């Protein structure tokens, strides 16, 4: 399979790789939303973490990805696009925009779907945590 130059660029120089701490550290933080989508047996897992201000602005985003080059590129691109946006703006990002930007072939569309899902999932997690009473300790994020 031939990859588009943008996919190769994100693969070789992924943006915003990392996390805001170990899974235990970040689980309790109310300013951080975590989205983990996919499954190892399906061949792709995306982890997106967002740090959100009290005003609902995504101040920072970090990703990790187990998956093919297109999955890595999709999640890397997603972090670039959501940084600085409000959560509501971030929720308007559609997988088709990712497909277009990275020139993904049809067989790789699921990678872009996964990236969109990870954004939704991280924002949902943040909303749930920020709405919860301050004293709550979240030890069960199922």
């Amino acid at each position: 399979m031939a990859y588009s130059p943008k996919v190769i660029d994100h693969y070789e120089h992924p943006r915003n790789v990392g996390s805001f701490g170990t899974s235990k550290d970040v689980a309790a933080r109310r300013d951080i939303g975590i989205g983990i989508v996919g499954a190892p047996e399906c061949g792709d897992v995306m982890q997106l973490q967002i740090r959100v201000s009290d005003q609902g602005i995504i101040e920072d985003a970090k990703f990790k990805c187990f998956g093919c080059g297109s999955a890595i590129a999709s999640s890397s691109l997603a972090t670039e696009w959501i940084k600085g946006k409000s959560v509501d703006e971030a929720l308007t990002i559609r997988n088709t925009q990712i497909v277009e930007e990275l020139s993904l072939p049809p067989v790789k569309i699921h990678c872009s779907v996964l990236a969109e899902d990870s954004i939704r999932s991280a924002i949902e997690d943040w909303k749930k945590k920020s709405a919860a009473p301050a004293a709550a300790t979240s030890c069960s994020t199922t």
Partner: protein
Amino acid sequence: MISTQKQPIYLDNAATTRCDPRVVEAMLPYFNERFGNAGSRNHRFGWEAEDGIEIAREQAATLIGAQAKEVIFTSGSTESNNLAIKGAAEIYARAPVGQSGRGHIVTASHEHKAVLDPIRRLMREGFDATFITPPPDGVITAAMVQAALRPDTILVSIMWANNELGTINEVPQIGKLCHEREVIFHTDATQWVGKMPTNVETDHVDLLSWSGHKMYGPKGVGALYVRRRKPRVRLEALQDGGGQERGMRSGTLNVPGIVGFGKACELCAASMDAEASRLLAMRCRLEAELVKRIEVTVVNGHATKRVPNITNISFGFVEGESLMMGVREIACSSGSACTSASLEPSYVLKSLGIGDDLAHSSLRLSLGRWTTDAEIDSAIEMISNAVGHLRRLSPLYDLHKEGIDLSKIVWQSH
């Protein structure tokens, strides 16, 4: 879209091999001055072509310890497998066309599709089949075949060496068992013949398929060995016409291809021992270095019962296609879903009980006649670096480092 400045390192010899220049040279006259049809019995052009064919038949037979008359030329292993399996099933069927209970066939679930699919077709046509599930080391033993045999078993088809793993099945023992039980034994020896010593007599093989392009010969030509005595094996032809190849495979013979195939057989016979030990040393070094340098790296299949040129390695927490992208200077294969149209990981790795996650993380590296030590050194460096790069990106590697058991996590599958 990727421009390659220099030729990548070719570690995909199990997919195909470069045609040996000596093979090409042997073929050329048969495109030019000796262009005749081997079936033309009345003039020199035909005789020359026929002479070329008969020399090739002798070379092919010698490589596997057979008689020249027992070699049928085909278009390659897929055709040889189809002819062997369907051709034998029709002859040895226990009941006529249209009925059920026509006979039982034994094979294994990690065989090549060119064996599995003909057998599946026969199942729709009244035959039964048992697909032996391989053990975790991938090696099919005679005991496993014995346990699968039934009174109505007519055919056993077990490959000699597996194309994805390189694992070697117990062919001589399985053949002996089949002869004792008077069951026809076919082996797809595509990844074996030319690399390892083969003798259809002492190995008790009745039908054996192999291909030119896996052993430095041309594509589009292969052969089927069909035993002529003890027992005399008969096959129903799949293709009717001019009655070439003892009526088993009609069609004008591919003279240049067959001449090249014969030459490739001769060259393999001459260099087999030296080549096998050279490739084995390189493969062992490749495996040992990668396992030493990269944690959670697993060589799939039996530790030692493998052909010298194939290795299949899973690198935990890293997906195979992205790994191939990271080693674009190496031409190889992966068992990852993403490299196939089906998005399913390799059924061969899955049939061994290797977890889907490790199946997605596998590379098949296969060495050949022109692989050098320097290329192996480069491959070790490039693979180590790429795995390192991808593990820095891998959420699964983080979880592993935190001591979390990935198999205990409930994933949100899609």
